[in-house]
């Protein structure tokens, strides 16, 4: 490991990120509990929506479970962004800039905490779903695919959070962006499939909203099985968001380090 300085740096910063993430119960607990509470409320309140002709699942829980992963990813965004912003505000980033640390190591290390959190979240959400009676059509392999897609989505959202933190350098600004992200989630196919959304403009917004395809990717593994189109769109968009987020964060990091 010592022969690869980048890997060594990633490991050290990654360990710090994971430990710091898991040591903040006020940040971690809501990211586990809140999506599950909203799931329970939505499933209870919208159970009768499964009676709408053309609804793709017999039980609304099967349909709704996918959304918990998106909410978890949203928490990842704010956690990653807030932690990085705190590093900027406390001067930790400036001190790191004086060392031979590479920018890529900082980003990857920072996002290790997001990945660890997303992995735990995805495992919990699946466990709760299975206990509540969800039986994914894609089988046991599908469970791994769900976890992988959930983590990839969280990585992409976390990279966006890191980019915003590096651009603004303010934890408050990241927190203030939370509602904006929430709007993206709600203006998607989270509550009903797109073909059952009656209001035309809403259906159009949901159709151009990438979040719909991320949700539908996970959802397809639960209620359809191995749907190549939904999975290609889900994994493709999640990978694209992660790549774009990481690229944008790298550029922002260079700018931030050049100023410091």
């Amino acid at each position, binding site marked *: 490991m010592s022969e690869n300085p980048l890997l060594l740096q990633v490991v050290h910063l990654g360990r710090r990120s994971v430990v710091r993430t898991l040591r903040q119960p*006020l940040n971690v607990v*809501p990211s586990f509990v809140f999506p599950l*509470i*909203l799931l*329970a*409320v*939505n499933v*209870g*309140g*919208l*159970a*009768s*929506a499964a*009676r*709408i002709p053309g609804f793709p699942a017999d039980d609304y829980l099967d349909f709704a479970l996918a959304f918990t992963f998106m909410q978890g990813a949203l928490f990842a965004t704010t956690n990653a962004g807030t932690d990085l912003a705190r590093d900027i505000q406390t001067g930790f980033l400036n001190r790191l800039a004086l060392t031979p640390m590479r920018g890529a190591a900082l980003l990857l290390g920072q996002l290790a905490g997001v990945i660890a959190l997303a992995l735990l979240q995805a495992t919990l959400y699946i466990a709760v779903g299975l206990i509540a009676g969800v039986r994914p059509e894609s089988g046991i392999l599908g469970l791994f695919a769900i976890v992988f897609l959930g983590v990839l989505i969280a990585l992409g959202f976390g990279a966006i959070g890191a980019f915003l933190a590096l651009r603004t350098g303010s934890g408050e600004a990241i927190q*203030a962006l939370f*509602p904006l992200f*929430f*709007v993206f989630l*709600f*203006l998607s196919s*989270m*509550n*009903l499939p797109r073909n*059952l*959304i*009656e*209001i035309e*403009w*809403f259906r159009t917004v*949901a159709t151009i909203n990438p979040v719909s395809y991320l949700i539908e990717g996970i959802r397809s593994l639960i209620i359809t099985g191995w749907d190549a189109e939904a999975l290609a769109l889900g994994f493709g968009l999640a990978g694209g968001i992660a790549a774009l987020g990481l690229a944008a964060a790298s550029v922002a990091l260079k700018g931030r380090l050049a100023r410091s």
Partner: protein
Amino acid sequence: MRSFTAVALAVAWRGIHNAFTNPSILVPSLLFPLFFFTAFAGGLSRVGDVPGFDFPAGYTAFQFVFVFLQSAAFGGIFNGFAIARDFESGFARRLLLAAPRRTGIIAGYALVALVRWAATASVVFVVALLSGMEVLGDPAELFALVLLGLLVNVAAVLWAAGIAMRFRTLQAGPLMQVPVFLTLFLAPVYVPLDLLDGWIHAVASVNPATFLLEAGRGLFAGEPTEVGAAFAIALGAVAVLTLWALRGLKSAESAG
């Protein structure tokens, strides 16, 4: 009494000025209800086709009443954040020292919440009308709905003020929000009570927010129901939470 009014008006003027001149405070409180209205009334309108859904004014109006009362509750909660911020900045302590009648401080914050909610509710109502919402209630019924909203708003700000004055930090924000959020969402938000099944039906049947929602929806649809129970609950909540907020004020005074 004059000193009480003077303190209340001074606190109210400052809070209203802050709220309406600071976009980072004003915009979220305006956008959140609009966003919920759009997401629920727009994205879920097919739920109105579920067998057994028989709200006469349609799904948009059904969701409007929820968002109307939710905005009243969260308008009060947002003001709790302002109180906590005042404690963090030290302003509230100076206010406690300067005010001849400290109970006027709570009344002032409540006035701020009312004015802010009036602005939010007006915007949501206009947007809902523009989206084609049907209003079947007569002016007296709509007035009663507004009155119900006012009581919910006052109850929420008293709840949040009690928390803010006890903890005196913005970190207590989740304590203000989460119980209100859960109470509201454990009521019949998406469909009428009769269409809920299982545990959520049991919870919603005893949830006081259900009575508020059902009364509000009945008034809006011109078919009043549970109005007496709803007003009794709202007035009771205001009475109990006034004591809660006053005890909070005492706690803040003791903390110095």
